């Protein structure tokens, strides 16, 4: 007996696997991003800033412009790295949302 399945087969794996994988990856990305930002924050607030202040104070240049410049650079670096983590997380999650749709269409990413 002829069947339509003899003539039509959707290509690629079942989208359910892809959906589950995407959900897992989204969670993992968020977890990694949160962990990275926590580490960056702890690094900046409890190590970088105290080390930099102590070093400038030890050299007797605590109130110099060189000290404020060094602190500003350290702050910018922290904000840049932390914001980059957020930006990458946003992009990853957006990609995963798009991939969820593509996986539903049978498109292999």
């Amino acid at each position: 007996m002829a069947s339509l399945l003899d003539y039509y087969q959707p290509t690629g794996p079942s989208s359910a696997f892809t959906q589950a994988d995407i959900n897992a990856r989204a969670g993992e990305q968020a977890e990694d991003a949160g962990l990275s930002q926590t580490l960056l924050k702890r690094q900046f607030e409890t190590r970088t800033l105290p080390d930099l202040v102590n070093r400038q104070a030890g050299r007797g240049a605590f109130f110099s412009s060189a000290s404020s410049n060094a602190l500003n650079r350290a702050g910018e670096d922290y904000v840049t790295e932390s914001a980059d983590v957020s930006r990458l997380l946003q992009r990853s999650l957006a990609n995963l949302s798009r991939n969820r749709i593509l996986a539903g269409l049978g498109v292999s990413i």
Partner: protein
Amino acid sequence: MASLAEIAKRVAANALSSYTGRPASLSGAQPAGSPSSSLLDVARRVGSAALASQVGRLPGGAPTAVSELAGLTAPAPGQNALAVGGVPTLAGLPGFSAPGSGAAANYDRQFTESLGRARSGIETQLRNALTEVGRQEASQLQAVGQLPGEYARLADLARAQVNETTTNADAALAATGVQGLAPAGTGAAPLLSAMALGQATQQAGVPLLDLGVRDTAGRARGGLEQAKLSAFERIDSEERQYAAQRAAEERDNAMRVAQMQYEAKVAQTRAANDMKMAQFEAAQRQQTARDEAAQANALRDQDFQRDIFKLELGAKLRGSPGATSGNFGALEVSAKKGSAIASSAADKYRDDSAYRLFVSAINQARAGDDEVTLDQLTAQFTAKYPKANRNAMSLAMYDVLGAGK
């Protein structure tokens, strides 16, 4: 003394019993006084018995059918003679499905029904598949429609995180008490504008995704329709193959029917020829029996004529006074020929002197007073004339005594 008719009866009875092998009774068989015709009638009966013995039937029975002679079974009225022999019918052949018969029609119907089920099944599958495609398409389109909101939510989340980080950094820097630090909230400004650009790029892809979803669903629908057409084509192909196969079977069957009809016709012709031959042989046997019976009749007739001639002679002689016996040569020829010979012999012997002398002796003896038998007279005459011709003497006795003188 037995009359001539009674003697003739006895002779005919003996002849008949010699044919039939049993004593024959002829009482009342023919009227008295017509011995000649009665004897012929008896001879005809004898001939009929001989004929009947040839064909195996007693006279007086029902006419023998030629078919019985030929050993054939007579067909019923209106029935084909060959049908009795059992010409096989098509329905009786093993493994044969005559066109239009129940088995073939049933098989055709089952096949057609199975094809119909296949078609309707494929239609149902297609309907279900198209429904599923439509459902998936709607779902994907809904997901695509939600993408801009999702992008915005993620971007807001990221901006909030960046702002929070900037605030934390500003607070930590201010806590150090160092003067001349950068103004608060300016650390992530270039990054935020870059993130806004990335979000706009993501939003620009949403219409393309929408198109892709619709295109994919359209392809799926087209593929399903194509699959349906292919399946139907396969079913149609099977139907055509089946029809061709059935047509071939019909042709084979027709050929077998024609072959059987031809063989039946040959058998009919052969049987008709055998029947004609049997009829011809039976007619020949009947004709032979008739001929033999006619021959026997002729022989019997000759024998009877001869016997009649002898009996008449004897009767005339015995009917004369004093006559006790006669002396006659056997006549082995036909009555007519015998009669001619006899008359010729009589003429010859009448010229003999013995004839004349014996006639006068008989007349003298009849005229005399003494009682003398024919034997005594013959003995005396023979003693006196030892060389006298006996035939001439017999003729003299016949002429004198047979004429009733």
